[in-house]
């Protein structure tokens, strides 16, 4: 629960804007203006401080009432032969209402970041993995290996909160923690310890990452590698890293699937996850998938429990039909398979729908600007600012309660979609 100490200052406010969902923010609210007083960063400042501009729903650019907009969406969905509900950047109840509506309107559901999350989900569905969660990392990690990802760009407080925290409950010497980057070099210094120890960096091109990961796994398993270097990294350096992994008591191998922009990145994630399993024959090691921006974990979770399947599930035949390739929003739009697109994006004004020939409905954060004015636009409230809600963190285990911080009068995604579902 968030407590209000003074009328306008909120303590322990959770942020839905990045996957680590820090919940120690101090926030000031004056009228409709929100600002972070303490524990902000680039991601959360933008998330909380983006001002409200437009408040009126629009049809083809003209202001209309909310009822008119809802009625228009209902007509579009009623006439649609292949609707897609995508984006899915919303909270728990927004996701619930979107999936209920997809079920009723025989739509396909997808998330704006499915390309990234599928890199992990496909591994889960093929071989599985051994993972850990943020509090375990904070207290136990002795070796952090970051694969192909620049963590601090997307999760600015990851190192402060999970690696260079003041103390571990197991009396670990925090300063002795090791950080190794494999693939990308970090863009900043968040991974440098407070004592000034820099992360070790083994750089390769993204395109070489699959090979580098495979060789590292092979060395961990005691295989002899004839090559001297792979992707520009000396095999002897990988051998040192393999040894560090074997010697560590609780290594954590982290990646952000959104950063792995290579073809079939799921295969590299799989190699990484299988290496972690191999390490656990003797010691402890865990994977840590970072992600979960814009409610993507929430969308996958709710979809899984309501339908049995994650995102990219199609209800056009009356039952859930999961296909991670065919039900990709972008592929469907590019192929002109979609006549009506419902785009949910309540967190970030920059996450607008892809341009397409489909009739487009946007339930978006106030302040969005469009390359192509959607047929219907409803500015909706942002979960955790304009209305209460719940969202999942990147680990898919912890979910946090989001608070209503101001009274903007903007409807929630749930309000709008539930009204549409009832009207259908």
């Amino acid at each position: 629960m968030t407590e209000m100490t003074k009328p306008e200052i909120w303590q322990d406010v959770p942020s839905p804007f990045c996957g680590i969902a820090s919940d120690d923010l101090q926030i000031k609210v004056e009228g409709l203006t929100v600002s972070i007083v303490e524990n902000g960063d680039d991601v959360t400042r933008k998330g909380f401080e983006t001002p409200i501009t437009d408040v009126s729903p629009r049809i083809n650019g003209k202001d209309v009432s909310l009822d008119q907009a809802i009625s228009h969406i209902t007509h579009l969905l009623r006439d649609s032969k292949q609707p897609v509900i995508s984006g899915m950047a919303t909270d728990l109840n927004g996701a619930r209402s979107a999936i209920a509506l997809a079920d009723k309107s025989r739509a396909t559901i997808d998330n704006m970041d499915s390309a990234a999350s599928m890199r992990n989900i496909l591994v889960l569905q093929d071989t599985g993995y051994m993972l850990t969660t943020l509090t375990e990392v904070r207290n136990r990690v002795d070796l952090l290996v970051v694969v192909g990802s620049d963590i601090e760009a997307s999760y600015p407080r990851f190192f402060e909160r999970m690696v260079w925290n003041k103390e571990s409950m197991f009396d670990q010497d925090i300063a002795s923690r090791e950080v190794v980057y494999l693939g990308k070099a970090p863009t900043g210094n968040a991974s440098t310890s407070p004592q000034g120890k820099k992360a070790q960096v083994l750089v390769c091109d993204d395109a070489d990452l699959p090979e580098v990961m495979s060789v590292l796994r092979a060395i961990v398993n005691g295989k002899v590698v004839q090559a001297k270097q792979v992707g520009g990294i000396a095999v002897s350096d990988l051998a040192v890293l393999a040894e560090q992994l074997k010697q560590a008591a609780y290594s954590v191998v982290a990646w952000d699937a959104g950063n792995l922009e290579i073809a079939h990145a799921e295969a590299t994630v799989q190699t990484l996850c299988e290496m972690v399993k191999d390490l656990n024959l003797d010691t402890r090691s865990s994977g840590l998938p970072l992600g979960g921006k814009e409610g993507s974990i929430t969308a996958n979770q709710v979809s899984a429990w309501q339908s049995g399947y994650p995102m990219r599930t199609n209800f056009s035949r009356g039952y859930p039909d999961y296909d991670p390739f065919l039900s990709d929003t972008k592929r469907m739009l590019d192929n002109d398979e979609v006549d009506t697109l419902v785009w949910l994006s309540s967190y970030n004004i920059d996450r607008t729908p892809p341009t397409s020939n489909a009739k487009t409905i946007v339930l978006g954060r106030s302040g969005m600007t469009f390359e192509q004015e959607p047929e219907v636009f409803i500015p909706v409230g942002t979960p955790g600012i304009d209305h209460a809600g719940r969202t999942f963190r990147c680990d898919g285990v912890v979910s946090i309660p989001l608070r209503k911080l101001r009274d903007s009068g903007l409807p929630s995604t749930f309000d709008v979609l539930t009204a549409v579902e009832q009207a259908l």
Partner: protein
Amino acid sequence: MLTRLTGGKLYDPAHGVDGEVRDIYIRDGRIINKPLDEKITTEIDLRGKIVMAGAIDMHTHIGGGKVNIARTMLPEDHAQDVIARTELMRSGCGHAAPSTLTAGYRYAEMGYTAGFEPAILPINARQAHMEMHDTPIIDKGGYAMLGSDDFLLRMMASNDDQQAINNYVAWTLTHSQAIGIKVVNPGGINAFKFNQRKLDLDEKNKFYGVTPREILLRLARAVKELGIPHPLHVHGCNLGVPGNLNTTIDTMEGIEGLPMHMTHIQFHSYGTEGDYKFSSGSAQIAEVINKHKNITADVGQILFGQTVTASGDNMRQHAAHPHAHPNKWVSMDIECDAGCGVLPFKYKDQSYVNALQWMIGLETFLMVDDPWRVFLTTDHPNGAPFTSYPHLIKLLMDKTFRNDVLSTLHPEAQKASHLGSLDREYSLYEIAIMTRAGAARLVGLADRGHLGAGGAADITVYTDHADREIMFSTPDYVFKDGRMVVKDGHLIDVTWGTTHVVKPEYDNSIEKELKPYFDRYHTQKMGNFKISDDEIVDDGRGSLTVQPLHKGGPI
């Protein structure tokens, strides 16, 4: 509005009613005594029908992180059982890890009106409640998992007094909105994080020096002293390990007479005799249960076919991973709180071990004398999906059928079991005890599981079919809080059940320790960990029912 269910043959063990013809009166969702002069608005003729309270599944994995991992992991399993949307029902999927909506519909269609999630990780409780909120018709609730959480182990390592532990247990139960306390591989999930690969009853956690036996005693005592009606719910050490029967007996005998529920005891009843070094320990286990009146157990029967195992016990699940079928599995360390492991599994009737597991479960049902202390579960979905309950009931009620199945199983396993010589057949009255009256008493539901005045009108009506599987698969009627939701085995209405909890009293000064603990070590604030009553009510469809406590107090 007064409804009379006329002329049914009632099996209501809570009131000692064994097959007597009686009328039932329902008003405002409750069963009432025969009113003196009120007009009956609806009458349903139940002459010749069997009437029981709605069934209660006291241990079923229906909500929470590991179940949802299982769902996401198994598209190929869902594909065989996808459910199309109807006017009444949402689409979904069934079989091993059904969608929440389908699970609710199917439970109701089998005459079940409540199910309890047995492994709610406090840190994941919010998700468990989200999923149960999306599970229609049935009532729900759950047991909060403790015993591998670092806060408890720290308290024990520093030898805190029992009162402090009671406060922590009550605080956790209250803020995770649970009705009971569960312990899974006591301390073992924690030990696995320190790379311990097994933890026997008297083996110490490497870091804390605390043993499973001590954890069980502390928690069982807390539950008793707090007056929580549901006894400490125990998934013991060494699940699935041949020879674990000795640990299980030691666990039951070592609890010093405190109330304790041993869950899926079939998985903990294995000896090491014979050529396969795997034998049935059910006779010894049943003997100990029969002797110790403080002990209850559910069986965790396995049935043959594909399923998925989802457990908090990642130490044991990790060890079992070579048996995953298909070969994919998940193990997680979770938040200095607990863990989980998910493995798809296929029980094969021509496997010696699986066949013997099937026999051990049935032997346990048949050798525990008191049906008030043994409960019908498959540990859904770990032993088999809950949809196999009617089949299991037939195995218990029909010796000929049971022995016919037995004769088709692995021949060496048949020789290793004396199941064929057990003549017992469960009666309808005993089935009603196991699945209704006993389950309600065990969970602590004062107003469920019986047909007396004041009880909720959760009622199931069957045709007395000689084939008990058919009978229990397709009730004639199911009433949920007085509303007819199933007719002729098919859903006709969708309602939303309540969430049952208990709210023990405790000293809230425990937060003076917990708040800085969360601040220093956790990645979530204490205030954000707590689940408010409003979150259970949620969009208005949910509700909380606070069940009465037992008399507590220091032992």
